[in-house]
């Protein structure tokens, strides 16, 4: 396929969101607005125990006293929190034993999302906890996991069935009052995923959750809690697509990871929420708090491919509390049109001999702005801590922006902290080299961008790597004239 001049650019940048459709299912929806009654309603709808309600109300009171943060390098119209409906659940909800029993309408949605049963068969070994408008509809592979003692269920089920675990760990990594959006989430979260890997168990498959905002005007507030007990291992995938909407949708999730002694958690995200139209109208606001705590000799690795959302505000972090623990952050953030992303990580070194690695690759196209904001904090107790950070930015157009705001705080004399960042555009010589060898410009750019992001894409599990490459291609190819 040959493209002339800006044709491809227009085709790509003008491309409507592929997954922009809605599913017609009757939903049980709370009236818009937030107050104590709504929280009580959510809690009672989910048949939660008293302590959970207390916890939510406490979070709500804390949230009331907080103000929305403005320090990020993003500009947007603040959402009206009283105009959002905080609870929407598909009405049909009964015990399901297999995917065949799922509402055909929902099945079609899943097919279009590319997580059909057929695909699941193809990518054997992926258990999918499918969240549609906050309520988990179907969970597969549950039995197989149960044999190993692995608990993988929706958050609401976990509250019912494993209250002791939930009670112990919820809010232990991201406290209720951590920040504005985390507090909001703590008060009104409707569902999410819960995962517990028992001592010494290596989870045999990639655990995966797909999120999707469905009902118009409903915000989605998931809460994910992953606990890897001593010596266990789990790889967790999270992917998002959202249908096209005209009003801004808010997504304020909280993800908490707990890696106990010698455990390892690998958390991968492909994020492709609806970015809005050419003017950013209708895009999703993605204000997410993700944080993990590492105990002795444990490891948490965050990998993210961010291509969607009108506004992204997200800093997956690691608290390296235990000695010899390791934190990793690999990120590719692509912004196009008028998308804005302010993303990065925090590595808090507390334990001795803790190591962290940060690789962040930003790509800005169209009129978008892409910022890396990160903190590397070496506490006084963190002897021999080591950090390496690399933040590269690639600019595709002269109307986009790439920014870097790294914070480096060192309070220990044995720490080694390195940070480097570069910003440049795609090398004309590289494109020329490809052209010379008969590779057209579009393919050359794709090649260079994929090579540029490879360090991060390599860290993704197989299943996601394919999707991520597809997303990169959609988001970027031909964005340079």
């Amino acid at each position, binding site marked *: 396929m040959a493209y002339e001049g800006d044709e491809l650019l227009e085709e790509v940048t003008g491309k409507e969101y592929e997954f922009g459709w809605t599913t017609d299912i009757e939903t049980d929806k709370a009236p818009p607005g937030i107050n104590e009654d709504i929280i009580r309603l959510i809690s009672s709808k989910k048949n939660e125990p008293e302590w959970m309600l207390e916890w939510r109300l406490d979070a709500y009171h804390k949230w009331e006293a907080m103000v929305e943060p403005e320090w990020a390098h993003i500009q947007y119209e603040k959402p009206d929190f009283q105009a959002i409906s905080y609870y929407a659940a598909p009405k049909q909800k009964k015990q399901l034993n297999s995917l065949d029993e799922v509402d055909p309408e929902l099945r079609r949605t899943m097919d279009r999302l590319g997580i059909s049963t057929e695909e699941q068969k193809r990518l054997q070994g992926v258990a999918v906890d499918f969240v549609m408008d906050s309520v988990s509809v179907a969970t597969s592979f549950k039995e197989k996991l149960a044999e190993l003692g692995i608990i993988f269920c929706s958050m609401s089920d976990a509250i019912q069935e494993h209250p002791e675990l939930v009670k112990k760990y919820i809010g232990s990594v991201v406290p209720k009052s951590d920040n504005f959006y985390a507090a909001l989430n703590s008060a009104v979260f409707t569902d999410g995923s819960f995962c517990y890997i028992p001592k010494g168990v290596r989870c045999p498959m990639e655990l995966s959750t797909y999120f999707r905002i469905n009902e118009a005007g409903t915000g989605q507030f998931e809460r994910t809690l992953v606990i890897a007990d001593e010596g266990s291992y789990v790889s967790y995938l999270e992917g998002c697509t959202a249908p096209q909407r005209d009003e801004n949708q808010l997504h304020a999730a909280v993800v908490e990871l707990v890696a106990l002694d010698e455990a390892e958690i690998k958390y991968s995200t492909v994020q492709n929420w609806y970015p809005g139209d050419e003017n950013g109208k209708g895009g999703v606001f993605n204000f997410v708090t993700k944080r993990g705590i590492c105990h002795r000799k444990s490891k948490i690795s965050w990998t993210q491919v961010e291509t969607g959302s009108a506004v992204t505000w997200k800093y997956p972090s690691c608290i390296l509390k235990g000695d010899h623990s390791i934190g990793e952050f690999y990120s590719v953030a692509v912004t196009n049109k008028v998308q804005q992303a302010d993303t990065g990580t925090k590595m808090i070194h507390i334990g001795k001999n803790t190591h962290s690695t940060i690789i962040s690759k930003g790509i800005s196209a169209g009129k978008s702005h892409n910022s890396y904001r990160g903190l590397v904090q070496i506490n006084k107790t963190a002897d021999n801590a080591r950090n390496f950070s690399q933040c590269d930015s690639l600019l595709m*157009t002269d109307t986009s*922006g790439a920014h870097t705001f*790294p914070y480096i705080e060192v*309070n220990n*004399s044995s720490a*080694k902290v390195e940070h480097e960042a570069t*910003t440049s555009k795609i090398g004309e010589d590289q494109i020329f080299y490809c052209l010379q060898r008969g590779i057209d410009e579009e393919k050359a750019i794709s090649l260079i961008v994929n090579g540029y992001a490879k360090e991060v894409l390599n860290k993704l599990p197989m299943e996601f790597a394919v999707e991520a490459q597809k997303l990169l291609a959609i988001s970027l190819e031909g964005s340079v004239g």
Partner: protein
Amino acid sequence: MEVANVIDEKKAKFMTPFEGSSALVDARPELKSEADLALTEIAVPTTRTEAWKYTRVGKIVNHDWNISPSTAGDIKEITNLDAYRAIFVNGIYDATKSNLPNQAGVTCQLLSEASDALQQMGELSDHNSDWLEALNMRYAQEGMALSVEANTTLDKPLYIVHYTDNTNVAAINRHLIQVARGANAEVIVHYVSNQTAKSFQSCVIESFVAENAELQIDKIQEEMTGESYIHATEWTKQARDSRFNIRTVTLSGQWVRNNLNIRVAGENCETHLFGTYMPRAKEHVDNHTMVDHLVPHCESNEVYKGIVTDKATAVFNGKVYVRLDAQKTNAFQQNANIVLSDDAHMYSKPELEIYADDVKCSHGSTTGQFDEEAVYYLRARGIGEASARKLLVQAFIKEIVEAIGDDAVREYCLNRLEERLDQ
């Protein structure tokens, strides 16, 4: 409300002693009212203010300072420096000790007497939204106005000394430098105090570097055994083909905050920023720099190196801003630190904000220790451990000090550095 009142009272109490000094701003009533407005409207920055995240302004505001008279005693200065001198003792110009340039094509006079310069005052500085700059604007006691005419080279550097020798003394000065087309000038600014002084020095320098002109500024900051609180701000605007170099050497200081703001407003400019700091005991040194690339085809280069020990704190916040039109910008920024004690703090924040695509911008920041292998190498050759470490410190910092153009100043800095290492 009560808290706000207490803060306002503190602010008022802090400013009262300065009321009488407004020699500069009296000539510009509109600036006076702007600064007054800013001082009332803006809250004193706290560690919740992003630009002051690691540095407490409260240490200054909560102390009672006075404007005190100049004293007649000897001053500390770089004696063997062959330069014109402008000496300020406790913020007051001392004519007897000064020796201003008397060269054709060069005008150097007190800012309060330079009507042209007074008209230009405040063109660059941010007295509307920055509380400490508003403070300087409103209460500046005196300053120098240096103007070098087109195609003239200032034959000797202008050496400005800010000396304090009294307790609780505040010295508020501001200077204005104009380097016309094709002209050259070198200015050395030395902040120094005597053994007993406890002083707060606030100084703003506004510089205008015209087409194809060159300006060099060396800034040396030190205190003896007393305590110095130094707030030093430089604003520079560069026109086409100009060159601007600034070296900041903070030898010591209880509380030092340097703000460098450079507006690269003409094409084909070159800008070099070097800095070094070596705080120890409970000293606090904060370097904020901002290079704002407004136009294409410019180059900026920034290297800051520091050694932090004891309970000292060092802050580096460098920002490179590349505007939409500033294509083909080459900007480089590096910050390297050595932390020698577990009670020391190093906060580094190298920032890039880039709105143009055809640019090459990079920054790096490292924090670490001595290379033990290098220490071992030296010891294996019969050099004692202490000497080996001293040698390595010198080697580490030397890159910055070597950039100083004037021999006497460079020599002075190296000697002072060595003395400090011996202590």
